[in-house]
């Protein structure tokens, strides 16, 4: 049943006109920053991981208005609930599908971003590992915020306000991936977020 739900979410993502938006946005940010910072290659290389993490966080947030709200409006959640399918399962499937839909293309685009920001290979690999560990938590937070704001006017902006403080630990440990133990802390923060998110999202989706 979980796989049926994931497959369906992926099919919907693949047909969405916004499929390439997060990764395009990500590359755009990486391309613009060198122009904004100016021709100081050392400075750029030092702030590159931070730029890329912020770009990844915002890319995870881009589709937040289409993650849960359409299912609430068109009765999909009603049909799922009438079948006694646990909302936790629905939320977990949505998190996995959202992660596959935004983080995998983003990781694929990482080499381009690395070149654009003049990152060296060692930093690039470390960043890739950190993004692999941290992006599932970003996907989970996006789904929680989407569930909390579904059905509200201007929910997307509110979702951003909900996510940003919660994403801070991920961002801090992710950007500091070079420090000893940071990756382990990142993995731990990511795991805690992933473990709690389906329950938080489900509680919001069950609102009557």
């Amino acid at each position, binding site marked *: 049943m979980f796989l049926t739900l994931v497959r369906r979410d992926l099919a919907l993502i693949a047909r969405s006109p916004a499929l390439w938006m997060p990764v395009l946005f990500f590359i755009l940010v990486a391309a613009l920053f060198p122009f904004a910072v100016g021709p100081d290659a050392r400075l750029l290389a030092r702030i590159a991981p931070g730029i890329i993490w912020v770009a990844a966080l915002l890319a995870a947030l881009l589709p937040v208005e289409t993650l849960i709200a359409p299912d609430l409006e*068109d009765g999909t959640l009603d049909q799922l609930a009438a079948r006694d399918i646990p909302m936790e399962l629905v939320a977990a499937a949505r998190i996995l599908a959202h992660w596959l839909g935004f983080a995998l293309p983003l990781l694929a685009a990482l080499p381009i971003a690395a070149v654009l920001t003049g990152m060296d290979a060692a930093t690039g690999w470390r960043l890739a590992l950190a993004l692999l560990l941290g992006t599932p938590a970003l996907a989970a937070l996006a789904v929680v915020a989407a569930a909390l704001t579904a059905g509200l006017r201007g929910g997307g902006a509110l979702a951003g306000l909900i996510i940003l403080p919660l994403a801070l630990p991920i961002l801090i440990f992710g950007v500091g991936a070079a420090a000893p133990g940071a990756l382990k802390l990142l993995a731990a923060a990511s795991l805690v977020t992933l473990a709690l998110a389906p329950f938080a999202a489900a509680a919001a989706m069950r609102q009557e």
Partner: protein
Amino acid sequence: MSPEPLIVTNLACQRGNRLLFENLSFTVNRGEALHLEGPNGSGKSSLLRLLAGLLRPTSGTIHGGNPRGFLGHETALKPRMTLLAELTHWARLDGTTAALPTAMAAMNVAALADIPCKHLSSGQRRRAGLARVIASSAPLWLLDEPTAGLDTASTARLAAAMATHRAAGGMIVAAVHGDIGLADPQRLRLG
């Protein structure tokens, strides 16, 4: 199919500060149908949502009536997906993909299978929703104004499908305005 009867005892439903109904008790046995009647806003849809498990009762109990097929006002069809992909998804969740072709034929939506749902008319979506209920093979059907937007031929098809369902021991609770082609239903008036 050996479904338990649906037994509702002393049900009350409050929405916001408004008490829609209280002390509602009824039983729907195998093969029986129940008409929910009453003016707009009297709580017909809320009662159906309670029976579907979408709302929690303010007080009282609902026993039996599981699994159920629910037809609400919203269609739960994704605009970019084809009708067949949509119905197949729900049949897969119900574990009844084998029953889908018959159900689609029963509501005459087989010819629409490859059309994206955004191009369907509201009557066609309604028929698709009914086909989803039929395909679910659930013993209890909960139908919210099932004939709204249906043409005469589709209404007749629905009546035939409901008769078949009841003959096989199925139960139906429907919110209606007027007759929807159910033979000899119980009636419950709200409001």
